[in-house]
């Protein structure tokens, strides 16, 4: 019975979505690993007293009437018309693993099946249409160790981790840029290998793959990762931090047509010394993210590029002054914020509200599957579609979207997407 219902839904949707023209081609996920404090970034609570705002008493008024963000984000404040804020994300998990899993897969169903990350899903959906030489799903510089997995789709759709340090003098991209080996040396080595190898094991096949790789290593792709191709002023604009230069790499990758780029910044799990850490990390974030959005916009790429920024959850609005935390914030998945921009997301809007203290959702809860489902729709992927599982048959792409017991809904209010009639 339920299956028939799904099938009908899929049919109806196939007709609906077929007609919608999608704008988004790429996604950049700026992932703040560890869980950033929403109250110090996109949902400040300046009037709640020191136990809540801590060192950050002030706020930044943005260039959009009525929207205020954290005092350490002045550059982002000047461009609030370019992005929207979701202030009512919720999944209720306060543990890293469950939080990551929810935000990266959109699955909060509690089911036993391990879902793929949404980067892997996008990679899978584009398997026939994406023809680029670069991998479809790239992480700068590494994916979160486990939840950017291919899940039940398998490793084929996992992210390609660049490794290396984009902020260093030379950005060594695993397998592509290797400072020890010149082209001449590589060719010498390959010639020796050719002479050595006489065994028949897959020889022809291996040789043709090696030829492809020589082209890959020494051809144009190498230059995509070469940040020396950027004027110094651009590099400065993003900030010379790991995050800043990673965002610049992301822009270059998107320019080269890569559909999904995951930029991951660690260090946001600030149980202790929270404000000291925020004092260095927030300016880096402010600079990098504002430069990324502005740069994409100036190049006409923001229209086709979705930018997302947030972590696996937020942090407790109330500060833990007591030992051993001595002014830290703990994990908090009840209500937290995400920034969304580009690719069909409107700018200058706020979705949802946390309550006065920031400890509960006050209005319009947004589930992880609502955010990811909207991203899918903007990319022309049906959020009510299915994915093939090796032993379970076809499974819903976002099982939690079908769960009507939890309040939520796709983000129609900040996109031009039309709500299908059956959903209402």
């Amino acid at each position, binding site marked *: 019975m339920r299956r028939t219902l799904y099938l009908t839904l899929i049919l109806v949707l196939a007709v609906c979505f077929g007609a919608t023209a999608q704008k988004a081609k790429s996604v950049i996920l700026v992932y703040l690993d560890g869980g950033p404090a929403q109250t110090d970034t996109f949902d400040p609570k300046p009037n709640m007293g020191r136990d809540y705002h801590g060192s950050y008493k002030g706020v930044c008024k943005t260039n959009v009437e009525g929207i205020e963000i954290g005092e350490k984000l002045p550059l982002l404040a000047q461009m609030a018309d370019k992005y929207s804020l979701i202030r009512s994300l919720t999944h209720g998990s306060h543990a890293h693993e469950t939080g990551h899993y929810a935000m990266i897969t959109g699955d909060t169903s509690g089911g036993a099946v391990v879902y793929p990350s949404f980067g892997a899903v996008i990679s899978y959906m584009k398997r026939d249409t994406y023809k680029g030489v670069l991998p479809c799903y790239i992480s700068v510089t590494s994916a979160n160790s486990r939840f950017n997995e291919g899940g039940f789709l398998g490793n084929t759709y996992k992210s390609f981790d660049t490794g290396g340090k984009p902020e260093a003098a030379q950005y060594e991209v*695993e*397998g*592509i840029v290797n400072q020890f080996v010149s082209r001449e040396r590589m060719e*010498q080595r390959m010639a020796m290998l050719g002479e050595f190898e006489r*065994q028949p*094991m*897959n020889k022809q096949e291996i040789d043709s793959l090696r030829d492809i790789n020589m082209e890959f290593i020494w051809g144009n792709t190498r230059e995509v990762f070469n940040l020396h191709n950027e004027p110094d002023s651009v590099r400065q604009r993003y900030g010379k931090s790991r995050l800043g230069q990673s965002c610049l790499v992301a822009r270059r990758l998107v320019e080269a047509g890569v559909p999904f780029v995951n930029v991951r910044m660690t260090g946001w799990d600030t149980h202790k010394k929270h404000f000291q850490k925020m004092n260095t990390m927030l300016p880096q974030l402010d600079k990098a993210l504002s430069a990324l959005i502005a740069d994409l916009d100036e190049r006409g790429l923001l229209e086709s590029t979705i930018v997302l920024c947030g972590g696996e959850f937020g942090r407790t609005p109330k500060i833990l002054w007591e030992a051993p935390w001595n002014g830290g914030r703990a994990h908090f998945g009840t209500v937290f914020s995400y920034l969304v921009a580009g690719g069909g997301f409107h700018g200058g809007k706020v979705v949802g509200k946390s309550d006065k203290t920031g400890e509960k959702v006050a209005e319009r809860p947004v589930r992880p599957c609502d955010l990811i489902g909207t991203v899918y729709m903007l990319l022309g992927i049906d959020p009510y579609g299915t994915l093939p599982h090796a032993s379970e048959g076809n499974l819903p792409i976002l099982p939690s979207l079908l769960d009507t017991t939890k309040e939520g809904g796709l983000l129609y209010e900040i996109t031009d997407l039309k709500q299908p009639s059956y959903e209402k």
Partner: protein
Amino acid sequence: MRLRTILIFTVGLSLLTAQATASERCSDEVFLRRAYLTVTGALPSPQACEKFLDNESANKRERLIERLIESELGMKYMLMHWGDILRIKSEFPSNLWPNGVQAYNRWIYEQLLNNVPYDEMVRGLLLSEGSNFREPAANFYRGFQKRTPQNFYANINLLFLGNRDCKDNGHLCFSQINFKSTKEWKEEIIYLDYHKSAPWQKIILADGTRLTPIYGEDWREPYVKWLTSRENRRFAEVMVNRMWYWVFGRGIVHEPDDWRKDNLPSDPQLLAELTDYFIAHNFDLRALMKKILLTKQFNSKMAPDGDFVAQRLPAEVIVDAIGSITGIWTTYSSRVPEPFTFYPPRTRSTQLGDATVSSTELELFGKVSRDVSLESQRNNTLTSRQLLYLMNSSALERRIRKSPNLQRIYQNNPTIEAISNAITLRVLSRRATQKEIAMYKEYAEKSGLPLMEVAIDIVWMQINSNEFLYNH
């Protein structure tokens, strides 16, 4: 070929016991590498190579096989195969969690260490109950993704009968299983509900066997008794075939977990003989392994000159081989899920025991994610991205350049002959040929590189060669 086969049949020799003729028999150096990689998943040390190659005794292959099968390395490699199909991993959404993973691995390892007969080991798994932390075998029931009698039964059919599509109602034998959580994080008790009234339906298994569960007893028992009995030949056949698959990368019935009626064995006689042997030897897994390694097929030259089909090395084996060649090993830790686990330095990836503990290299070469109990989840095809890593990874290049093993080789005797011989022993488990040494000399002269740089290039080249990448 056909003529020979007919000949063999008319003379009345079985294919299994027929010794490979001298022209088909692989060389000692090929056999040594093949045996090490197949049984232990590790390369032989240069010392072990020289010792074996210089050994003149007639039964040295048999002695080697016995030693490897009983070695810790060998048993831990078998443990990896078991872990793959039993889905041992601490995953989220969670089933086992690190404590359970450790307990479960230890239990299986003890079975292998004591060479517990296969039927007894399966009984231990299937009749388990209790806390997943204290009664390790009980993790068998936590390891599956859905906790329904139907799913337990489907997986038991898949694992032990190679049946992907069970249509009978044997799952009723598993309908007493229940889970009770404790206050301990992720500890859970697997228990049987003895107050459940016996099913009214008759339980009729696929072969027509009728089982009658009795109120107040463990209903799994009659099923497990049927499953593991000597009369249930399929139970033994599936294990024999699985072991064949672990050795050759291809089952006599292939896929090894797909025994539907129209999927016929490529060599029924071989399967029958091995199965008879396995049952006659009381389900002795080590004896079965030894028997398979002494077959003509395993001792034969690589195809097309012989019967042995070269297989790309599994992910873990490649990664560990690079560790043993360079002397620089990957270190592993698991930070998610908590509690954190830090593995001792020089831990082999074949011995991690937890599919969620991984590295970029392991993922690249297709480490099994242990999401399903199918053997086919291991993907050993060679991809361009894997070759890209071998050709041009800075991480790999650094390991070769900093390799203490290579530095020792260089310092011992800095001549091209000595270096190329020592490298070839380490990487390819054989001595360098005169022709190869001449080639290396020419390379050194032509390139004008210092000797150490030439040594680095030789290591690079051998690691990139298909002779290294394949078990041949």
